[in-house]
């Protein structure tokens, strides 16, 4: 059975992505999978001794953000499942899509500096093409909304 995968990281810029994913889920009648990826790259140039503790804390934060997204989905009658992974966002997203054999992936146009990139349209398009090539899933880019 197909599904929809949506990577979230919280914050106002994720709101549009979640809304787009919910809208798609209701339209297609498919279950929605939210993914949060714990990425600790920001620690690498600062400190090396707190990785385990911070990883645990970031997982709790990720679960919290996912809980908010799932609650939002339930409020509009969409079945949602949460996943938490650790590593690089783009790789973990592709991995989950391959595991679930998902039919749709929802991407947002977020200003990400965490992985060193601001995601302009060109990047999102290129990334979307990579996901489609690797997973066969249809990529849906969230429409631009109000920025925080």
């Amino acid at each position: 059975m197909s599904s929809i995968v949506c990577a979230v990281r919280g914050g106002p810029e994720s709101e549009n992505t979640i809304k787009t994913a919910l809208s798609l889920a209701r339209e297609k009648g498919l279950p929605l999978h939210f993914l949060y990826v714990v990425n600790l790259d920001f620690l690498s140039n600062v400190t090396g001794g707190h990785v385990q503790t911070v990883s645990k804390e970031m997982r709790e934060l990720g679960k919290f953000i996912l809980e908010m997204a799932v609650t939002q989905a339930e409020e509009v009658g969409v079945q949602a499942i949460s996943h938490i992974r650790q590593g690089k966002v783009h790789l973990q997203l592709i991995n989950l899509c391959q595991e679930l054999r998902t039919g749709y992936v929802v991407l947002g146009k977020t200003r990400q500096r965490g992985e060193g990139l601001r995601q302009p349209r060109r990047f999102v398009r290129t990334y979307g093409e990579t996901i489609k090539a690797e997973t066969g899933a249809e990529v849906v880019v969230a429409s631009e909304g109000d920025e925080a």
Partner: protein
Amino acid sequence: MMAFFVSLIMLFISISPSVAQANDAKPHLSKGVPIVGVLKDAQNQPVSRATVTLYKASKMFARTTSQPNGSFTIPSPAELDGQLILDFSRRHFQMQKLTLGQDVLDQLRTGCVVELPEIILKRQVTAGFWVATLIFVLVLVLIATGWLHNTLASLFGMSLIFAVTYIGSLIHPTLYILNFAEALNYLDWNVIFLIMGMMMVIAIVENTGIFQWLAFAAYKISAGRLWLLLPILVIITSVGSAILDNVTTMLLMTPITVRIALTLRINPLAFLIPAVMASNVAGVSTLVGTPTNILIGSFADISFNDFLINQTPGVLIAILCLVIYTEIIYRKDLKKSGKTSPALVEKLAETAKITQPGNLKKAGWVGLGMLILFVFGEHIHLVPSVTALMGATALLVWIRPDIEEMIEAVDWTTLVFFIALFIVVGSIQEVGLISLIADFVAGLVGDNLILAMVVIIWMSALLSTVIANIPFTAAMLPVIAYLTATIPGADTKVLYFCLSVGAAMGGNGSLIGASANMVTAGISERAGYPITYLYFLKKGMPALFITVGISTLWLLFRFLVLN
């Protein structure tokens, strides 16, 4: 990897610093009365490891080496029937000769020890000077830009220094900077072991969940009053930063603070920005609150009590003003409060628990013991690093955690960073760059203590917004030592406290100004609330002026009025 770092540190420890030993040449004539003297540089700092040679009638009679305090003792010949000339030579200094006059010879003939007046050696700018300076600047740039990890940048700098010394000096002797044995003299093991000890204590405490519990307690106490929640979170962060370190405090506080803010449906930055700024300010109040204080305390022999007494009042006032400032800039966010979701509150409560109450109690008792030793230990000459090591060991023996996990929890990369950094800074001290900087600053401030205090605080604060504060502080310490020795009234060590304030509180001026800022921004970004450089600059620069301004006034009052 861990074994590599541990081995590297043990290697450094096991090689005892080879302070040059007195190396008397075998006299070809019998020895007479000793001649003693002291060598200093233009900044009145002792010159150690200088070769002192006594020539009698153009033939070498005896040779010795100056000690760490600059003193030397050299035997005179029993037969004083020729001209006696003392020759002083030291790398990076101009060679100097001193012909002993008739009065000295007469004094020697009477059998009295001759004490020479202070001999000032002049610096010599060599090719090594320029290379060492360039390497130091390169290390600063690599750290500031993040092109290399801090530790790698300092290791790279250290390796370049040795490469130039050992290989470059074969090509041209003036490329000589600092050899390995000389470099070991610049390592401050008190700093290394104090940081190591505190890291082990922090590793136990951070796993207990205490910060998360405190943050949730703050949320319950405030009962939805955001204007009250902000100062409570600031207090928790401040105390944590003063006792542990501000990076750890922010690593632990930021995720729970974000969750609290999300539960309250407000922008987490309204809490995170005040908290991280407070962490940069509060760390100044204790010896162990910031790495820069540890460096300063060890170099200048400033105790835990000295920091508490001289810095805490100013820090408290600065934090109060910081709270008022942040309540104003975030007033719109603090007025909002959407409906909180009971499910989210329940989730919050689930995770904000003390997970290891037994360990927390033990850590509390050991922490109390350490505090007592920090406060009273100076009366028995107990150095802080020993207190930290004893405390860490007591905690490990009492708790018996997985020792490999504990060893992994120690940030060995930071310790190696400090070791390499000491050598890089030592190299610029060796070649005389620090002396030049000291001369420049002394020329700027003259004998005016007030001017010196203001210049040091504000120069440190503003430079800390762009330069990593740890290497900056390490390089400034000898400069401050010179100013302390030459400016009337500075012997209270006030200038060191000024450096402490500027180097730490300057971190509020920009996102890259402090590691605590960077980790907070990293976590916040991963929760969907990025903190851009410009955003932090707009909020942080006024905070810098407020807190550094208040601390300036406090230090002026404390040392010029109260003293």
